[in-house]
């Protein structure tokens, strides 16, 4: 018995070692990249002493339009993506989960197609749609980038929201309507409050995915004014960019982490208030929602 126990604990120590090493391996390079934004020299790989020159002053990330424009554009895209995707996705989810008709199944399949084809295929498809069909409003550039990101993020919002909807009995809305509420009222007063955690989780995921998105944003871009942060990192990394590039990448990462953390804190608050346990938390939902759709 004791030998088996010891055996098990050795196994556990091994597991702990793997976890610790994995976490260090996954995060240390990012920490080092952040460190290099304080490099005294121009190198992003050789340490030449400490300096704040890439954070303040004329060569800094805040003083070069190429960096500030990319940050501004990434934030613009993320805000637009959240504003459009969340209402669109939540209302479509309500339709998909409550509609009893033959359109629901093929429609939910179509909406989740972006999860089962590589993003590159979707990006190429959207590129041809925009360049070969004369759509109103949507062109290569900001409008196309927003449309592409929304299409890519929509299925994630749907998976998160439908997961929540399936745990809300339809009886709640029906009861509201029996008591005299109109359908819009029962939606606004019953369903939306119950969906709050899912809506919040969707918004966090939409924001994070939009900020991180590269392929679709790249394919739908036009001039340099539509360059997002990931696009700039992609083009500048192998070139002679200064450590200001690392500073820009850090700013974007910290922004996303802070927003996700605030969102998650809010989510916990909501969940506690409503005693909800069966909604996917926003953080794992980021990746789990892809799995759930399949």
């Amino acid at each position, binding site marked *: 018995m004791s030998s088996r126990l010891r055996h*098990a604990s050795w196994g556990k120590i091994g*597991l702990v070692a*793997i*976890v610790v090493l994995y*976490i260090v*391996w996954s*995060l240390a*390079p*990012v920490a*080092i*990249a952040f460190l290099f934004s304080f490099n005294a020299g121009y*190198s992003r*790989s*050789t340490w030449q002493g400490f300096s704040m020159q890439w954070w303040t002053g004329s060569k800094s990330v805040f003083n070069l339009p190429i960096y500030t424009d990319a940050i501004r554009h990434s934030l613009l895209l993320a805000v637009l993506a959240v504003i459009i995707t969340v209402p*669109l*996705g939540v*209302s*479509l989810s*309500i*339709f998909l989960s*409550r509609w009893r008709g033959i*359109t629901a199944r093929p429609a939910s399949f*179509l*909406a989740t197609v972006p999860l*089962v*084809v*590589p993003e*590159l*295929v*979707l990006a*190429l*498809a959207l590129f*041809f*749609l925009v360049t070969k069909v004369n759509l109103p409003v949507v062109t290569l550039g900001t409008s196309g980038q927003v449309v*592409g990101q*929304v*299409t890519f993020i929509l299925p994630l919002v749907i998976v998160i929201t439908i997961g929540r909807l399936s745990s809300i009995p339809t009886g709640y*809305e029906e009861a509201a309507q029996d008591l005299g509420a109109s*359908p*819009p009222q*029962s*939606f606004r007063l019953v369903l939306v409050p119950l969906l709050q955690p899912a809506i919040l989780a969707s918004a966090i995921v939409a924001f*994070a995915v939009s900020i*991180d998105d*590269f*392929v679709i944003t790249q*394919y739908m871009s036009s001039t340099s004014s539509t360059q997002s*942060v990931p696009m700039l990192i*992609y083009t500048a990394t*192998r070139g002679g960019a200064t450590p200001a590039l*690392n500073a820009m*990448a850090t700013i974007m*990462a910290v922004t996303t*982490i802070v927003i996700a953390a605030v969102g998650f804190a809010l989510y916990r608050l909501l969940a506690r208030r409503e005693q909800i346990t069966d909604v996917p938390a926003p*953080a794992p939902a*980021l*990746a*789990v929602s892809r*799995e759930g759709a*399949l």
Partner: protein
Amino acid sequence: MSPRRYLLALGVPGLIWVVLFVTLALYSLLAIALGGIDPLLLTPVPAWNPVDWSTANVHEVAQSLQPFSGDTWIVFQRTCIYILLALAGCILIGYPVAYFTAVHAGRWRGPILALLVLPLLVSYMLRMLAWVGLLSPQGWVNAVLVPLHVVPANFGWLDGRAITVVSGLMYGWIPYFIIPVYAALARFDTRYLEASRDLGAGTGSTFLHVTLPMSRQGLLAGTVVVALPMFGDFFTNGLLSGVSSTGMVGTLINTYAESQTNQAVAAAVAVWLTVFLGILLLPYLRSSARAGREVGR
């Protein structure tokens, strides 16, 4: 307004969006792949009407997919090997991490989970940027390995090395692998482990006969979640190698798409890739549908 009509009104904007930007977009891809070429500009001309479809582009790609000798086949074969190696790495490292976090972490579960999610919030490009710095000839990796005589001085990790690309793919996608595996394992009732032990099974046999079968669905989900984007990945390669000798299918599609005159070929390769992945995904979709039914969702 009747409830039914109100429901329809809620659904219509999203339905239009999906039809327009998913269905019509994918149809555009098909129309380009099966379309022609403008004789003067050499740009692709979509064939919207199935009557006008021509298989020239698709056929051209099919020919270069000739097993073991066609140009596209060689890229395709390399892609599959790289992805299989990266997936093996994801499973070997990611599974124990997910398993520990879900089953043994106890009160550390929350903090560990936060650290596992953190890379998803730090953008993919920043994580690649970090490695480009570390792997450059004068970077910190060489600073450690050169004095140990593991690699010669100024070793060029970024000059088109398969090992760099495979490790890069693994590093980039493993956080996306761990989360679904964790989610599947977290639902796992640990009393089964105790039961197995009480019935006399050792650690190894408990793992083999209880833990592993119950992780199957999660492992499959994680594999699909990371394998799909890897098949379309050209940026990891572009940042960590940039040489065509390590090019993958994603690189090929992206390179063709960048030149106007080759866009039809890009579309044709993308169509073939989608067909291939569809066939590959079928058993998974079937098994996850079955698992879904068994759980009674």
